[in-house]
């Protein structure tokens, strides 16, 4: 079929672009959540430190 390779390339291109974009999006979201968790943990530790200082005094 003439021109068939163009359609084949288009189909393969769409699949891989879609899957790579999805994979990158998941990794980006994982990195964001990781930052969120770190920030929340630091806040919790700071709160606990403040609390223990208050108890000692």
């Amino acid at each position, binding site marked *: *079929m003439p*021109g*068939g*390779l163009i*359609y*084949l390339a*288009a*189909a*393969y291109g*769409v*699949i891989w672009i*879609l*899957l790579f974009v*999805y*994979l990158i999006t*998941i*990794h980006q*979201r*994982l*990195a964001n*959540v*990781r930052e*969120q*968790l770190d920030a*929340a*943990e630091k*806040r*919790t530790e700071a*709160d606990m430190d403040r609390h223990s200082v208050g108890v000692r005094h």
Partner: protein
Amino acid sequence: MSTKLLSRSGTSPIGLLGWVSPLVILAAIYTALVWVPPDAEMGDFQRIFYFHVPMAWVAFLSFFVTCVSGIVYLRTRDFRWDFLAVSSAEIGVVFTTAALITGSIWARPIWGSWWTWDPRLTTTLVLWFIYVAYLVLRKNVDDPSRRASLSAVVGMVGFVDVPIVFMSIRWWRTIHPIVFEGGEFRVAPVMMVALLVSLAAFTILYAYLLQLRTALEKMQMEADVLEQSSWD
């Protein structure tokens, strides 16, 4: 990166699937594009088939996992099942999108049209809308328990469309090719090998994506809980 990220929340390492997936995908690409001979009638263009069918298969599998996870969540109220359900639904939507687009690209030169309201195409589009609605619903309900329960019900009811999609080309008049009929595949043995390799490769990719996506959902829940407790 991902192994480190996931080990934090206590989930199992994803290293093995992360390495195996690209290898099997490369094997599938080689088999479909190089190893298997071109189709006698359609030529090289027919090779879309080796990726279009696995896209649809993974979509069906994803929605099945969403349905089962929803049922188990409603019975146990364990949020891990809800994480699995939403992760699988999202992957299912991605693969349904890929199946619809690759099918449309195949249809243009064969049927002379990008789209036709054929029963298979129409029911697949309905399936896509159902699970997009599932994801939109989750974005609009704040309470985690209510969100999980509502989406479990939608995930279960939505799955009813999957057997309809599968049977549509048998129940109604259609122009969509029938690959599997009477308990056997209607393709040449060499094409069957390429199809099976591709099916296996994309199923492994699905498992990898599911593991990543479920871990993300779990970590997001942990972050939300920590955030909430630090403000209280």
